[in-house]
């Protein structure tokens, strides 16, 4: 072969650099974008190589042949660029066999037309060999398909550049460097091609695009080596951020400026029993729990989150809501992120400490003073039976207090695994405790559904039943317990004909805190409340006519049992299989409102 033209030598430099970059890119598979970058670079090498053959060919048919072969590389470049940019920047979900096939339709059609000998002069209306100072060119008068594929190439190039341009402003220097190198590598051939299409190149027939591939190759090599392109790709960041949002253990809602729900994470959907597909796009007020209260957390309030009781899938839990604005690059608020933090455990612990502090500071001290006083009296009169009896009763109350304190501690022992028991067993156990306290009491047991319940409920019912008969001054105390199941909730009522519970006790339980002046009279009701809270349930008190109290406890049915067979081999309650309504109470129906 004769000596190469200077133009061919320049093209071979582009081939050398481009192929080296292609091999290095191919080696980085399966890093995001590696394969597509190799496709892009191979396309460039292909185009430049066959352009050399075209330049060095001496006849029109030979030049036309190599010109047509170049189309394979020409059309591969924009396809490779688009999918490289998408995969590299983390938009890999758009890189699918279907999308690749769809995007490749026009390029494949172009190659097919070229392979078929350009029927109808679609690619080139005329081809002429022109002698110039720098070589012999094939001057092509473009046909209609030429302009179509040229426009399509520019379109794919522009679309692929968008995510890379975003990286230019990234905080991470390596990604800025990578994207800058890639954009330079892409802009150089574009500039060459624009010059060719606009007629700015003084040599007729010379398309300088492949010459610019030398610049591309150097830029890509720089990106691969200096900026660790492909070995340090930003692709995982989008996934990781999405993963953090999805896997966050706090429920999160994203609400647009128009008050419509834009997004929510898995925890939010699960906690509040929300169907994500249905919820997104709906007004936030209908989906986000207590939205009306939360939306007021503007400005300074947003920095002072407060507990908001919300009924979730597992019952009523206190949450703290925080609201953060999503601000775009122009400081415009585009959405608000509402995050719920479950503070039930923290508040419960604080509450228990308060109560136990009161018990030791007040109740134990009172009883101890009593014992000390009557012990002094016994010292002066060892035959004082009343003093002895009072000391015994006081010591008994302390012992009982001690037992209940222990029970309260065990209720929240994190090392204890949650056990379940049939509701019938829990009721029987509670009734047995009450009978032991007051053997003369008239105790009635109504219909009890045989559903599984957490054993904590046994403690709750035991305290309610013993309180009902113990604090009853009638000669034959009466008590009745009933249990029903509805919408996945167990509702147990304990009624008595005693003197009733002091409203001050309700007040303290409602407020959740005790003060030296406003406190409960013992720890029994607190154990009941803590147990019910622990189970995600609700408790309410009603007065009975003519005397007495009705205490209603609602807790979710324990569904950790294997469905299909109830306890003791009996079929499960049909209510358990009822489809749950989709409201703020999650997969359960709302707890029956027993009123107060």
């Amino acid at each position, binding site marked *: *072969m004769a000596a*190469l033209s200077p133009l*061919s*030598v320049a093209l*071979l*430099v582009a*081939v*050398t*650099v*481009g*192929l*080296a*970059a292609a*091999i*290095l890119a191919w*080696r980085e598979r399966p890093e995001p974008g590696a394969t597509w970058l190799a496709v892009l670079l191979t396309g460039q*090498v292909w185009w430049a*190589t066959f352009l*050399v*053959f075209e330049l*060095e060919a001496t006849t029109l048919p030979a030049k036309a042949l190599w010109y047509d072969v170049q189309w394979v590389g020409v059309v591969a470049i924009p396809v490779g660029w688009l999918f490289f940019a998408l995969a590299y920047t983390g938009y890999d979900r758009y890189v699918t066999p279907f999308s690749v096939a769809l995007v490749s339709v026009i390029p494949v059609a172009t190659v097919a037309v070229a392979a078929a000998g350009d029927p109808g002069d679609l690619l080139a209306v005329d081809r002429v060999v022109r002698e110039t100072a720098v070589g012999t060119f094939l001057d092509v008068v473009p046909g209609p398909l030429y302009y179509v594929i040229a426009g399509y190439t520019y379109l794919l190039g522009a679309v692929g550049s968008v995510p890379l341009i975003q990286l230019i402003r990234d905080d991470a220097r390596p990604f800025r460097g990578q994207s800058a190198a890639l954009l330079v590598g892409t802009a150089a051939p574009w500039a060459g091609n624009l010059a060719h299409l606009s007629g700015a190149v003084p040599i007729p027939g010379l398309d300088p695009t492949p010459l610019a591939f030398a610049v591309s190759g150097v830029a890509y090599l720089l990106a691969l*080596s200096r900026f660790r392109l492909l070995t340090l790709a930003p692709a995982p960041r989008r996934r990781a951020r999405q993963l953090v949002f999805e896997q966050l253990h706090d429920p999160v809602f994203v609400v647009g400026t128009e008050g419509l729900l834009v997004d929510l994470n898995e925890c939010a959907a699960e906690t509040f029993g929300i169907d994500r597909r249905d919820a997104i796009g709906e007004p936030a007020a209908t989906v986000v729990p207590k939205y009306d209260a939360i939306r007021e957390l503007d400005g300074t309030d947003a920095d002072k989150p407060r507990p908001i009781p919300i009924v979730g899938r597992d019952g009523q839990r206190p949450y703290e809501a925080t609201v953060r604005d999503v601000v775009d690059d122009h400081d415009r608020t585009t959405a608000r992120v509402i995050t719920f933090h479950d503070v039930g455990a923290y508040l419960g612990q604080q509450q228990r400490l308060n109560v136990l502090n009161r018990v030791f500071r007040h109740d134990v001290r009172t009883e101890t003073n009593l014992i000390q006083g009557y012990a002094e009296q016994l010292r002066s009169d060892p035959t004082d039976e009343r003093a002895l009896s009072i000391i015994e009763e006081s010591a008994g109350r302390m012992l009982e207090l001690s037992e209940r304190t222990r029970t309260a501690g065990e209720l929240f022992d994190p090392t204890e695994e949650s056990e379940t028991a049939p509701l019938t067993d829990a009721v029987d156990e509670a009734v047995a405790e009450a009978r032991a306290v007051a053997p003369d009491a008239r105790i009635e047991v109504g219909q009890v559904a045989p559903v599984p319940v957490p054993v904590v409920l046994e403690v709750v019912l035991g305290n309610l039943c013993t309180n009902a008969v113990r604090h009853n001054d009638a000669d034959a105390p009466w008590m009745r317990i009933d249990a029903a199941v509805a919408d996945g909730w167990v509702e147990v009522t304990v009624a008595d004909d005693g003197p009733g519970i002091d409203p001050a006790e309700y007040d303290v339980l409602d407020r959740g805190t005790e003060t030296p002046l406003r406190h409960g009279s013992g720890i029994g009701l607190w154990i009941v409340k803590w147990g019910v809270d622990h189970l995600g349930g609700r408790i309410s008190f009603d007065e009975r006519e003519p005397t007495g109290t009705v205490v209603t406890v609602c807790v979710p049915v324990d569904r950790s049992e294997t469905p299909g067979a109830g306890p003791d081999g009996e079929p499960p309650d049909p209510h358990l299989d009822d489809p749950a309504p989709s409201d703020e109470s999650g997969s359960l129906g709302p707890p029956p409102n027993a009123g107060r």
Partner: protein
Amino acid sequence: MANEPTRPSAPDGTTAQYRSHATPSDSGTLRLVAAFVAGAPFAGLVAAVEVAVVTAALGVPLSAAPVAVGLVAFAVYAADHVADAEGDIGSTPVRARIALRYADQLMVAAAVSYGLAVALAAGAGPAALALVLVPGAVWIGYATDWLPAAGDLVAPLGEVSVPRLKDVFLLNSAAVALAWAVAVVAAPLAFAGVPVDSAGAPAVALLFAYVFARSFVDVEVPNVRDVAADAARGVATLPVVYGVSGTRRALLAVDAVAAGLLAATAATGAASTPALAALGVGLAVSVTVTALADRLGGAALGVAPDCSYLVAGAVLLAIGW
């Protein structure tokens, strides 16, 4: 082709390169440089000399073919050493250590080298371009997991698994020999733009068969040294399957066939006699190396088979080509 010998083990079970504190640093550096040069650069040099000798034998004008094929050889062997560095720790520890430590630099050098070779070939025309792509394509099928992956794609149920060419008995060496025979014999013609008929088709065919046979021997002889490592990795080679003695006999037989091919080439009268004589001297060196395969140390066995071409090249220069 070239391989780095295994260092003899010390009585305490360690090898020399792991006791560098007892070795002067300059000799350690020297050893690393020597190991590097004896690796891919040596393979590239040998390939270039092979092409030059065949160019002389065929009587075609000298072209860029030796440089291009030498660059391809360097690229392919450098990439191969990097790809198999972890597996080569047992048989060629120093070379493997270099490949592991300088993997990125070696791959950049290999990529640029192959790019340059392709550019040189593209400048010589389509036929030359196709030729330089052959060794790269064979290496991809030979050493990478491309074939098994493609096999899994075709038969996803896993009923038929396609192994790496490198792991297939005899076919592995034959594939390498074939790739080099194509590149070494056809490249001088393609780069010089000389049709096969002009050079004498029988002579070209016989020389092709000769280079194929010789390359096969050159690939298998170092396997005598690698027999333990290859057996451990499940790679079937002649020494693994037939033992060292069987391998020596088989390779001597192949050398004998090569000698016959060389004589037949001379009989055609189309080849250059001085070049054929030089190749004959090289063949004699090869036969000697094959005969001493189990006695030569690892260092010698790693480079000796390929040295036959260097000897042939030196003889050719000496007799005035």
